[in-house]
C-alpha cells in the first residue's frame, strides 16, 4: 500500500547540495506552502511527488548580516526571526507583520515565500522594489540572480534542480534614505491572502527624485514592475505635478491586468492598485524628507 517515501535532513549545507546534485528533490523549508499545496484529505499525509530535502534547520541558511552596503538574509530565516532582528528594515518588518499569524510566522521562511512564487506572495512587492537579489548555491559554485528574473510565473522559478536559494540580498538598503511604503490589501486583518499588494520606493535629493520604484502584487502572474515607467519620474521635482501623477497612473493602467477569482475581482484589483499608487505619489510624507 503506502509507497516508500525518501526524505533527507542533513546536518550541513554541503551535504544537502551534494544530494541535490544527485537527485531531483522537493525542498521543504518551513513547509507552510508545500504542505497545503500537496495536501491530501483529513488524516492522510500530503502526496509529495519527489524525494524530500528538509533545509529549515541548516544554520548556514539562517544568518543575517551586512556586507558593504548590502543586507544579506539567510533564506531559512523564519518571519519571526526577522521580526526580532535589529537590522531588518522597518518596511520589511511591516510587510512581515501582515503575513498570516504568529504560528505561521514561526515556521514560514523568507526564502520559502520567494520560491513558492505565489502571485500573491506577501513579501514579494517589497523585495522587488528593494531590487532584491538571490544567491543560489550548488556543488558547482554560486550565482546571483535578480528576483524579477528568478520568479518566472506562478510557482515557477529559475532554479536548477541542484541549486538552493541560500540568501536574499537587499542591495544598498542600509545606506539609502529612501521612503518605502508597503500596503497589503486582504479580506481581513490577519490570516488573509493578498487581494492586492503594493510597494512604493522613492529617494529624493534636494527636492528632486533620484529614484522611484513601484511593485504590485496579486494583480498578475508575477509582481508588476516597470523600469520604463519608473524612469519617467527621475529628475522631477516634488511635489509632483498632477499631470505627472496622472501619466504614471495611466501608464500602469495599461500594464496591470488582474483576474477575477474566488477572492476578488479584476476591476477591484486594478482600481485599488492604481489608488494606492496615486496616493503614494501624492503623499506628503516623502515630500517633507
Amino acid at each position, binding site marked *: 500500500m503506502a509507497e516508500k517515501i525518501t526524505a533527507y535532513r542533513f546536518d550541513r549545507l554541503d551535504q544537502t547540495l551534494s544530494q541535490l546534485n544527485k537527485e531531483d528533490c522537493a525542498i521543504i523549508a518551513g513547509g507552510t506552502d508545500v504542505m497545503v499545496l500537496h495536501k491530501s*484529505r483529513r488524516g492522510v499525509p500530503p502526496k509529495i511527488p519527489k524525494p524530500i530535502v528538509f533545509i529549515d534547520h541548516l544554520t548556514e541558511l539562517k544568518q543575517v548580516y551586512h556586507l558593504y552596503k548590502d543586507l544579506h538574509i539567510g533564506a531559512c530565516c523564519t518571519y519571526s526571526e526577522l521580526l526580532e532582528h535589529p537590522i531588518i528594515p522597518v518596511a520589511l518588518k511591516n510587510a512581515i507583520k501582515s503575513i498570516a499569524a504568529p504560528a505561521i510566522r514561526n515556521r514560514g521562511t523568507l526564502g520559502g515565500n520567494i520560491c513558492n512564487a505565489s502571485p500573491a506572495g506577501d513579501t514579494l512587492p517589497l523585495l522587488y522594489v528593494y531590487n532584491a537579489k538571490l544567491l543560489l548555491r550548488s556543488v558547482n559554485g554560486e550565482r546571483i540572480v535578480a528576483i524579477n528574473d528568478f520568479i518566472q510565473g506562478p510557482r515557477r522559478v529559475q532554479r536548477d534542480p541542484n541549486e538552493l536559494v541560500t540568501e536574499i540580498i537587499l542591495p544598498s538598503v542600509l545606506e539609502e534614505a529612501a521612503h518605502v511604503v508597503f500596503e497589503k490589501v486582504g*479580506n481581513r*486583518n490577519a490570516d*488573509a491572502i493578498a487581494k492586492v499588494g503594493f510597494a512604493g520606493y522613492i529617494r529624493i535629493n534636494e527636492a528632486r527624485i533620484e529614484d522611484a520604484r513601484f511593485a504590485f502584487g496579486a494583480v498578475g502572474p508575477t509582481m508588476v514592475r516597470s523600469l520604463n515607467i519608473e524612469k519617467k519620474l527621475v529628475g522631477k521635482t516634488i511635489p509632483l505635478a498632477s499631470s505627472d501623477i496622472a501619466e504614471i497612473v495611466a501608464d500602469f493602467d495599461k500594464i496591470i491586468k488582474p483576474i477575477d477569482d474566488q477572492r476578488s475581482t479584476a476591476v477591484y484589483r486594478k482600481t485599488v492598485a492604481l489608488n494606492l499608487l496615486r496616493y503614494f505619489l501624492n503623499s506628503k510624507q516623502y515630500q517633507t524628507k
Partner: protein
Amino acid sequence: MSLKDISTSVPKKDHKGKVSGQLPYISDVKVENMVYGVLVRSPIAYGKIKSIQLPTLPEGYEAVGAEHISGPNYVKIIQEDQPIFANEWVNYIGEPIFMLVGKDLNILYSLLDEVKIDFEEHQAVYTLDEAIQQKSASGITMATYEFGESLETIAAIELGAHQIIEEEYDTGYQEHVYLEPQGMLAIYKEDEIVVQGSMQCLYYIKNALISALDCGADDVRVVQSPTGGGFGGKEEFPSMMACHVAVAAKAVKKSVMLVFDRSEDMVVTTKRHPAKLNYRTALDKEGNILSMCVDIYLDGGANAGLSQVVLQRALINSAGVYNIPHFHAKGYVLKTNTVPNGAFRGFGAPQSFAGIESHIGHLSKLGNFDPLEYKRKYLVKQGDPTITKGIFRDPILVEDMIEDLLNASQYKTKKAEFQRNNPKNQRYKKGVGTSLFLHGCGFTGSGERDHIKATVKLVKSKDDRVSLKISNSDMGQGIYTTLSKIVAKELDLPYERVLYPDPDTKEVPDSGPTVASRTTMIVGKLLERAAKKLKAQWQSGVDQEVFEHYVHREMIPWDEKTFTGDAYPAYSWGVNIVEVEVDTLTGNIKLEKVYGNYEVGKVIDERIMKGQIDGGLAQGLAYGYLEKMTSKQGRIQQKSISDYGPPTAMDVVSIDSKVFDNPYADGPYGAKGAGELTLIGGAPAVQAAIEDALQTSFQQIPITPEVIIESLWRKEGEKG
C-alpha cells in the same frame, strides 16, 4: 455553590474538559472494529446517473448505497425530497451518491479517485435570479406564502401617493464555520445501532434513522458528543450523515465513522439562504409611509429541507420592529441546483432585518430625517398588532434601550463630528449606523404544540443529586450551565449537585431540538416546573423521577394557510450602534466601536449572555461586510476558511453591551430566547454606518470592499 440571583455567573459545567482538550469530540473517538466512510459525490449540478463503475475493492472495503437502505431513500425532515444516497437523479454538486467504507483513509481516498460515473447532464438552474424568472415552471417553487393588506387597497393608496419607492435588496450566503467540522459515528451492535456525533437535534436524527432503517424505536439510539459549535449548521444536516453511517454500519456490520474535511464541509453542508427582497413603498409629501409591499425570494438550493420554515420566519419579520400601515408580504422558496441551504442562527430573520432596516434607512434619507428618528416614529408599542394579526402583548422597552444607547455611544455628537471631519480626510471616512430588531422566541406558530410536544425528565438519585434528562445539546451556548442553574435554584440545591450528562435518546425523552431560541424559554420553563414538582415530593435518600410536558398557552391561534395569528409567544429585542472607518482607497472597513442593548426577559447567566452577545454580533457584523461566499455554475467558490474570511481576533473590537430586565411570565425566572437575537442587528447596523461614512446607499450585503470600490467609482463617474 448556592444561587442567590439567577443571573450571577457560575463556572461552566463543561469548562475543565474543554480547556484541557480532554473532552472527546466525535473525531477524538475510536471504537473497536471501526472503519471509515468517505462519500462519492456528484461532480455535476443536475442530471441522471447512467452507470457507475467501481474499481476493484480490496478485501475489507465495500461500497454502500441506496440498495442498502431498508426504508425509503430519503432523509426524513419535512418533505421527502432529499435522497440519502442519490441513485437516480443528482441535483447539486456534492450530492452523496454512495459511500466507500474501509479501514484506511489513504486507500479510501485513492479508491474515490478511481470511481467512474456516467451522467446524462441536464440544464441546471444555478442562480436565484434564474429561478425567479422560472418560478412558475414545475418544481421551482418549493414553498410560498402571502398575507397582509389586500393588493386592491394598496393599489388605491399608491394612486393617491406622492411617490412610490421601489428597492431591490440582495443578501448572500453565510457559512457557519463551526470550528469542529461535521462528524458522525455509527456504532454497530447486534441489537442496536448507536449513532453518536456532533449535533443539535437528537430526535430529528432518531426519527430519520427509524425511517431509513425501517426499524423500531428501540433499535436505534442517538447520543450527542460534545459539539464544537452549531449555529444551525448542525440542526438538520447531521440527519443525513447519521443515515449514511447507520445504513453503512448495518450493511458492513462494523462501526462506521464519517468526519468531514474542512473544505468538504464548506462545499457540501447547508448555508444561510441567499435572498432577494423587493420593497415597494408609497409615501406622502412629508415622507410618511402610506403602504408597503415586500416580496421575498429565498434560494433553497436543491432540496426543500427546512426552507419553508425559514421563509415563514423571514416573512413574519419582513416589517422589522415597525408598525407599517397597509403592509403586504409574499414569499417564495425557489429550487436551484446548488447545495441545499438550511438553518443558520436567525433562521430567515437576518435577511429580512437587513432588508427592512436598509429600506427604512433609505426612506428616511429621502425625507431628510435622521434614520433613527424616522425608525422611532414607526416603532411598535405594547398592544400593537403584528403584521400577522397577532398582538405584541408584553411591555416593549426599546425606547428606553435606544435612549440609553444614544447616551452611551454619544451618537449625535459622533455623527456631527464625523460629518465635520470626513471632508478633511481624503482617505479615511467615518460613519455611525443603528439597527433595531427583535427575535420571535421559539418555534413559529403552533410548532411546539403540534410537532414538538416537549417532555422533560428529572432524575434524583439516592445521594440526592439531580440529573437533567432532556434531548437538548450544549454546542457551546452554555445550556449545561444555564439549565442546571434553573433546576438548582428551584430545588434550592447546590449547583454542583445538579448534573446534565450528554443526552442519549435511551435515557432522555424528546424535549425538542436545540433550535429557534427555544431551549431556555421552553425547555427551561418545563425544567423549572419539573423541579417545583420534584421539590414538592422530595424524599431524601430515595430514587425519584418526575416528568413535565409542554402546555400550550393559547393566544391568537396561528393559521399557516392564512398566515395569521400570534406567530410567537414572546419577543426579545435589541438595538445596535456601530461606528466604522472606511478606507476609500481599498474599500476596507474597520470596526471602531460597537454597542448593543438587549432585552431577553431575564438573564440566566450574565457571562453566558455576554458570550452570546459578543459571538452573535461578531457573526452578524461579518455577515454585513466581511464574509463572502459565492457559487459559480453550481460550485461553491470559497473552499477554505481564509478565502471565505470569518473574522479573526484582529477584525473585532470590544463590545459595549447592556441587558435590560423585563421578565416574561412563561419563561423560567422570566427568561426569553437570546441566542439568535444577538446576530440579527449586526449587518444592518454596519451597512448603515458604511452608508453614513460614504454618504451613499447600498442595496446588498455583504458590503465588501469590492462593492464599496465599485460604488465609489460610479460616484466619481457621476461627478464627471
